[in-house]
């Protein structure tokens, strides 16, 4: 069991998805069950099997053209403002990110056409454009330094790169640092914006949905779609928040991480690591049976491999509760946010607790005998929740679980 010396609370967040900025955008999209998917114009999708992604459209609030570091800074600033923590605070910056891949593509594109900047074929400013990624933004740790600099936070920094659990790992690390008394506060963040480099890789792995929708746990699911996601949360020791009169939005009462020991890319078919991580988190939360859980935000990618394995893993983790706890995948509306999935879904789970509404699994058309839980199909559902579990999984069989509690 834990060696906790302090409770962990959430006091602020900033979030940005294809639906726009902030909680209300999530309420209009994720919580209404409205998928964000559309053909992306961010790059030529001609060579790929689908043009679809959950990428923010052009317009005044567009993400397009933004470098990740700007989106991170904006979300981090919003999170600090909501928490009422001033810039200059001695808070950690813990980031889950793969680096800004647009800088890699742009470098090789420019190298292939000497003298022509891929973003400015007329020869005007390109890589030097402050809105674009710099070459060094491909270094994940550089983005954490950049975020800490923008927010003028003076605490420790650490960058997690473990794929789709990266930002969940950053949150777990923040919880450990705070609960062990090493630090008082941390900004935990993650980001991914749809770009060609990663899109092409997922296309080559035949992981992208064939019908332009993400249908987690549904019998006719055909794969995932990528989506924009950037978020930051302020974690704080309960005592630190109390001392400065900050209002806790939620408590983080349990966390766990475990590995499948099965395959470099596929999940264990029985969801072994996912069950281990969830059980760790629930033990730490003092609720090993999950008796207090009212909702599970699933990883739910919409792939054949993931969703059946996740269902079996949840059954193993919650043998007494699996059939009675609602489970939904918000990737059905946002798309897969990769390194940002953990922190964005953490925010969504927190909103479910505070709003008393379960976000649905959109695109659910037909039950799959392999997936036999209550997936909150297509329509939001009112619910009076005390605790919720959010789960993520990644390449290499990495799994994370976090238990949140309404104050």
């Amino acid at each position, binding site marked *: 069991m834990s060696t906790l010396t302090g409770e962990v609370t959430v006091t602020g967040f900033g979030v940005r998805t294809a639906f726009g900025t902030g909680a209300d955008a999530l309420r209009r999209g994720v919580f209404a069950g409205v998928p964000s998917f559309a053909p992306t114009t961010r790059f030529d999708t001609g*060579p790929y099997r689908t043009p679809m992604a959950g990428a923010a459209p052009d317009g005044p609030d567009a993400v397009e053209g933004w470098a990740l570091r700007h989106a991170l800074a904006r979300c981090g600033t919003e999170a600090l403002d909501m928490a009422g923590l001033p810039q200059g605070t001695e808070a950690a910056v813990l980031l889950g990110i793969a*680096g800004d891949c647009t800088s890699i593509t742009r470098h090789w594109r420019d190298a292939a056409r000497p003298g022509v900047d891929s973003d400015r074929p007329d020869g005007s400013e390109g890589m030097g454009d402050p809105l674009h990624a710099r070459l060094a933004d491909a270094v994940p*740790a550089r983005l954490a330094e950049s975020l800490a600099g923008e927010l003028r936070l003076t605490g420790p920094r650490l960058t997690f*790169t473990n794929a789709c659990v990266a930002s969940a790992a950053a949150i777990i690390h923040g919880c450990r640092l705070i609960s062990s008394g090493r630090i008082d506060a941390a900004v935990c963040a993650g980001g991914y914006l749809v770009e060609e480099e990663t899109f092409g*890789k997922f296309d080559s792995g035949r992981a992208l949905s064939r019908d332009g929708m993400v249908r987690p746990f549904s019998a006719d699911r055909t794969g995932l779609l990528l989506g924009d996601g950037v978020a930051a949360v302020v974690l704080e020791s309960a005592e630190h928040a109390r001392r400065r009169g900050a209002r806790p939005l939620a408590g983080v009462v349990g966390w766990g991480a475990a590995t499948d020991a*099965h395959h470099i890319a596929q999940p264990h078919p029985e969801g072994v*690591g996912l069950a281990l991580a969830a059980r760790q988190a629930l033990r730490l939360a003092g609720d090993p049976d999950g008796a207090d859980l009212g909702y599970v935000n699933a990883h739910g990618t919409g792939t054949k491999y993931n969703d059946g394995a996740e269902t079996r893993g949840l059954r193993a983790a919650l043998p007494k509760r699996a059939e009675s706890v609602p489970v939904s995948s918000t990737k059905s509306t946002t798309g897969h946010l990769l390194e940002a999935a953990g922190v964005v879904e953490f925010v969504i789970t927190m909103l479910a607790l505070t709003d008393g509404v379960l976000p649905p699994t959109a695109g659910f058309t037909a039950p799959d005998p392999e997936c036999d839980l209550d997936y909150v199909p297509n329509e939001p559902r009112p619910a009076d929740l005390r605790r919720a579990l959010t789960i993520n999984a990644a*390449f290499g069989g990495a799994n994370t679980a976090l238990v949140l509690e309404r104050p």
Partner: protein
Amino acid sequence: MTTTEKAALRSPLAVLTSTTATHGTGRDGDIALPRLPGFVESAFSPLAYEVAARCLTACPGDGSRTAVALASLMGDTTTADLASTRVVSGRVHNPLLFMQATPNSVLGHLSREFGITGQMFSLSTLDDPVTELLAMADLLLEDPELDRVLVLGVELGGGERVAAVHRELTADDGRPVPDLPEPAGLAAALLLTRPGPEAPVTVRATETDDSGHPPAAPHHGSVQGLFDLAAAHRRLLRDGGSQVLAAAGPAAAAFLLSSERLPERNETDTHAHQ
């Protein structure tokens, strides 16, 4: 962890075993890359697997109570650049490059081969990863469900883009630019636990000597500090005694390594790694 404070460890750590490997560097002892099923072209994953496997083979243990943390500057740049040049030239992506693109992939392979179900992390560090990895191990070993933490660092040589990234990084802080050739790579690993009879060399946080010159910061992404830690471990196993290692860079942490098993030598030598 990059930190403004010097203290990195709350409790002592102990080294169960350590190892290093180099490939294509021209140094003595360069190895041929081990063949890993499903991994192609890049030295990143084979080198990471090689050092991790040596440690886990030398000191077998309970995989459910073992955690792993892998640090590198920006992961597998060879794979990233191969994939990117294919995109730019309009060629179809190679699914194998997709599969191995993230450091999680080799960690997944490692977990399967050695039955590790404990948590596995991959990290990006600008500075010498010694301080971050030891701090991570110290934190993880406070979890009563863990007994051992395998820490490893990988550094790849780089081509044109990686060199350009380094030039941009060093423009801010004047660090040196690495000169490792493109196909080359370095990796080091240490298997850590809490002090006990099976791990005679301990690692504690200590104070740096503020009167002396701090070690110069190495190039970004250097794993030389891990190599020095592994070398100190081997030396103390052989000779006994103790040694101070001062981490280079802004973290400025220092660690005292001591051999608890062999008779200690009279002198304590100070060695700044860089």
